């Protein structure tokens, strides 16, 4: 098997990147990127105008120096050789010093201002994209993968920064020189000037070709680097499994293939420049040579003066030089353009779970949850919940029971609005969840999953994630309430112990306890526990369950657990099967009846052995 085909199979069937995109789409994408760029630049309009002014002054001062030196020699020295006072010379020298200082000051102002704009935009872009990623729903993240998120927020953002920092300077200077020189040439001698500008169309066509090609090439670079990043991040995140299962050689193969794709993409764009830059140079040189011969012939026949010809040769050189600068700028622009394309794409994504237009208020949530004709499907014709009606009165503790895939977690996710129902509605205290603003909803509903993700930081930081403004006291009380205080105090630095990367220094059970404390601290009206005690040993679980009795007394709770021990604290049991509720009642009643729950309960008792 060749490396490419295996890479393909590694990417599975759902590869989302397209290498070739139709012309129409390209135009759309470009327009979208430009909109974003304009949007980013708009607040800096004035500064950019100011900058342009500064560049003009700076360049003028810079160009004045050689001119002043010539004046100094031509006009300043002769009086001195005649023994007169060196007044002119001193004036010229002073002027040179003045010009040098002016240039230095404007240059410094320019570099600082341009740098500031670049950094400002970078910060703004980071903020915007980060915030947007956080806004996007889980269904988006499940497909997009964290590697891509990282790639957007690092290498793509950096590409734009580079353009802003280095590009602006060369572009403005180049454009100024280009137009200035063209005007000068035509003024000097219209005839020869026009001749000198003949290759311009060729140059434009050539540039157009380059622009097209390099847009493609840079797009490819961004894509390939993103794949490198995604693979890199995933294998570093899952390094334990990689090492345990001797995945290294295969990973190395995949990485080498991706890395080589990236190399090839880079090579293509570098080769394009390797053709384009000397190409421009060639056109310029040929023009100069042509003008040299034709102009020489004209001068020979006294149709232009020798002085004009000499000036022409000097300026022509200057005329084609900026084209290289411009194309250099084009490089950074292309790479930034490809990055902008991806970033604007992300910013265009709408969260599936959108914020309400007219948010409803929910001043003191009681915690009554109601499902009205709720249908939900991840894939169109495979509904997980075909149609669900359910009311959970405020304060009730409900245990959800059923086999894997029965729809328990889906139901929980609908209440915490990780997803919106395909049909029907979910209500909290009579308000459709879709009418609630996110912070309001999250204050009312909290879900603890089996994942127990811990962030880098201390134990206290992680518990406080439930309520960032909580005092240390409250953090400790939360930990005590669910029985985590003991193990936390035994840690080297107690609550200030670093949990390590993703909580790596804690055991699975400890992570779960911290996650529990976090949820408890958040103090929601509705608490959802999805397999939240699965990693705990029996004594810890017992502690948690005892704590739950008090914790859940005054709030609505939905508990999903395979260990039926949890059911004991429930007021009501719902047995689910294929997305439907097949049994519903207080636990005692269901155990007594000869239904599914009774069967499950028996099986569980046997498992305790």
């Amino acid at each position, binding site marked *: 098997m060749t490396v490419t085909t295996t890479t393909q199979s590694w990417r599975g069937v759902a590869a989302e990147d397209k290498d070739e995109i139709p012309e129409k789409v390209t135009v759309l994408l470009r327009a979208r990127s430009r909109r974003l760029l304009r949007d980013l630049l708009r607040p800096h309009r004035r500064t950019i105008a100011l900058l342009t002014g500064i560049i003009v002054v700076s360049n003028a001062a810079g160009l004045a120096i050689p001119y002043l030196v010539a004046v100094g*020699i031509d006009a300043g020295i002769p009086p001195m*050789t005649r023994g007169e006072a060196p007044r002119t010379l001193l004036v010229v020298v002073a002027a040179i010093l003045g010009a040098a200082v002016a240039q230095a000051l404007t240059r410094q102002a320019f570099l600082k201002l341009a740098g500031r704009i670049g950094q400002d935009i970078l910060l703004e872009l980071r903020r915007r994209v980060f915030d947007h990623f956080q806004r996007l729903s889980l269904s988006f993240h499940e497909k997009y993968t964290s590697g891509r998120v990282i790639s957007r927020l690092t290498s793509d953002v950096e590409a734009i920064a580079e353009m802003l920092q280095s590009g602006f300077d060369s572009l403005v200077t180049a454009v100024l020189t280009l137009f200035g020189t063209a005007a000068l040439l035509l003024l000097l001698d219209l005839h020869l000037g026009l001749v000198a500008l003949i290759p311009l169309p060729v140059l434009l066509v050539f540039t157009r070709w380059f622009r097209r090609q390099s847009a493609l090439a840079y797009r490819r670079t961004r894509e390939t680097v993103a794949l490198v990043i995604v693979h890199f991040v995933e294998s570093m995140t899952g390094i334990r499994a990689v090492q345990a299962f001797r995945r290294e050689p295969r990973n190395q193969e995949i990485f080498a293939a991706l890395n080589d794709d990236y190399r090839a993409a880079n090579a293509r764009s570098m080769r394009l420049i390797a053709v384009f830059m000397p190409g421009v140079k060639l056109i310029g040189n040929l023009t100069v040579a042509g003008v040299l011969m034709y102009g020489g012939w004209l001068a*020979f026949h006294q149709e232009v003066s020798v002085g004009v010809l000499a000036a022409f040769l000097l300026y022509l050189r200057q005329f084609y030089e900026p084209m290289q600068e411009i194309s250099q700028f084009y490089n950074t622009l292309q790479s930034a353009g490809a990055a902008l394309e991806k970033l604007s794409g992300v910013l265009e994504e709408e969260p599936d779970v959108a914020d309400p237009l007219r948010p409803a208020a929910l001043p003191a949530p009681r915690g009554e949850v109601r499902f009205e004709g709720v249908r939900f499907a991840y894939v169109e014709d495979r509904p997980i919940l075909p149609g669900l009606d359910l009311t959970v009165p405020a304060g009730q503790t409900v245990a959800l029971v059923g086999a894997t895939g029965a729809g328990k977690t889906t139901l929980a996710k609908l209440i915490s609005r990780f997803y919106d129902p395909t049909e029907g509605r979910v209500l909290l205290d009579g308000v459709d969840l879709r009418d609630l603003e996110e912070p309001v909803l999250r204050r009312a509903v909290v879900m603890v999953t089996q994942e127990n993700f811990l962030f880098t930081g201390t134990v206290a930081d992680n518990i406080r994630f439930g309520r960032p403004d909580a005092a240390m006291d409250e953090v400790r009380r939360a930990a005590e309430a669910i029985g985590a205080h003991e193990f936390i105090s035994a840690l080297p630095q107690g609550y200030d112990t670093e949990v390590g990367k993703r909580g790596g220094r804690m055991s699975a059970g400890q992570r779960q306890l911290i996650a529990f404390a976090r949820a408890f601290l958040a103090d929601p009206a509705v608490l959802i526990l999805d397999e939240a005690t699965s990693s705990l040993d029996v004594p810890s679980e017992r502690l948690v369950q005892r704590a739950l009795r008090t914790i859940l007394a005054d709030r609505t709770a939905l508990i999903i657990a395979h260990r039926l021990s949890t059911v004991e604290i429930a007021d009501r049991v719902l047995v689910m099967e294929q997305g439907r509720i097949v049994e519903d009642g207080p636990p005692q009643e269901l155990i007594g009846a000869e239904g599914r729950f009774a069967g499950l309960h028996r*099986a569980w008792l046997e498992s305790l052995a």
Partner: protein
Amino acid sequence: MKSYLRPYAGKLVVSWLAALLGVCAGIVFPLIGKEVVDGPVRSGDEGALVSLGLVAFGVGVAEALMIFLRRWSQVGPVLGLETRIRDDLYAHLQRLPMRFHGEWQSGQLLSRATTDLSTIRRFLGFGLLFLVMNVIQLTTVTVVLLNMYWPLGLLVAGSAVPIIWVSLRFEKQYIKISRQVQDEQGDLATLVEESAIGIRTVKAFGRRRHVYETFVKNAEKLYDSSMRRVDLSARFFTFLEVIPNFTLALVLLLGALAVGTGGLTLGTLVAFTTLMLQLVWPIASMGYILAMAQESMTAADRVMEVMDTVPEIRGGTRTIDDPRGHLRFEGVGFRFDGKPVLRDVWLEVRPGETVAVVGATGSGKTTLTALVPRLLDVTEGRVTIDGHDVRDLDLSVLRAVVATAFEEPTLFSMSVRENLTLGHRQATDEELREALEVAQATFVYDLPWGLDTRIGEQGMSLSGGQRQRLALARAVLAKPKILVLDDTLSALDVETEALVEEALRHVLREATGIVVAHRASTVLLADKVALLSGGTITHVGRHHDLLEEVPEYRELLAAEEVLA
């Protein structure tokens, strides 16, 4: 570094030669124009005009060609270098032990593998060449100037003193600040990574604002250091432009005086100043190039930091031809950051035997199991398989003998098939089916594309129980002699768990098993139980005996509170 460039020596020579010739052609080209104006045009020699014109065409083409050659021949070496270092970095990271990965955020590693390596590439492809060219140009011109009129030449050479002095100071500050910027970029990448992987937790608690603020705080920190870097380089760059211009003014003044006193001809002064003007740009651009050089040095330092980390866990040379799976812990101790986690652990598991490890949350069960495939290394004593210290075994041999199903299964965003065959790539469909049946994970056949369905990163679209079953199938598929189940069944419902346990019994008959367990039902998979307490194994025995004799064990495993 040298070894990375060696294969490209030929191309590099071509590239540098082309660069040199290109510069020469660039210098000659305008001279032809001067010749034309001074020669044929004045003398009216048509033939000379044509021949000089042809020379101009030739040199013009040559210059373009040299630029092309320089750029084209550079592509291979420069990108080859970057790609190979990245490959090597990745390989090295895969070799580094869990301990390293526990300490290093992947964001920091990532910024080394991408941003830093690109910085180095850019410097090698562009900066280095111009650095050398500039230095050559500067020294040549200075020497020419000294020859032309030494007092003024000395003045020009003297102007290098402040430039060098400031450059050195600049470098020191710049290294510090650019290192800081690069590190902060890595930190930011880490934050992004956490916020993306932990998105469910962030959402569940509605902590978008909180996470966002943390991110912005760090982004602003990066902004501040970046701005300090901008300011520093702005000051330095302008300084580099001012000095040659000031020197020029001085030269003009003193030169004019010398001309006045007859020490210098006007023509020489003109030539002198014209040449000096050629110095301004190379000096000014040195600032940019030096900054680039600094950045790539820091980048190289950062990369070497990782590359120089010696993998603590390196495989031995010994192989086992026909492993039986006889596992022994002999006085094993493990310390983490000096804190003892395990001490004096003695445990023997005979071939085909299964032992359950029971202990309270955080008692070191997972650590104990990680010592077998050497995800961690013992700090005292030894672990042996069939009498061989695991540290003497070839790593890939060892890890083929031992397979672990982790409690928190790591799934990758690739097809189900590739996720399962992680440890056993040649597995047939038949073997896959068997393993999936043992793990009760045949649900994968019902996924939209069956085994070829690409599951999201970390298997996010699957339920916890489903992920655990896939991880179990993965371990079973590897057909290891020693199978480690680290609380692998915790997220399964009772019925499924019973089915899995039934199937596992068959698998465990063929293999040596270590089962980390919280539940009596799982413990019953084992022939004997080891109780881990206070960092060591206090009791080994049969479940029922321990239940009766050891209060601590009873406390841990007594039936969960049953509905009254």
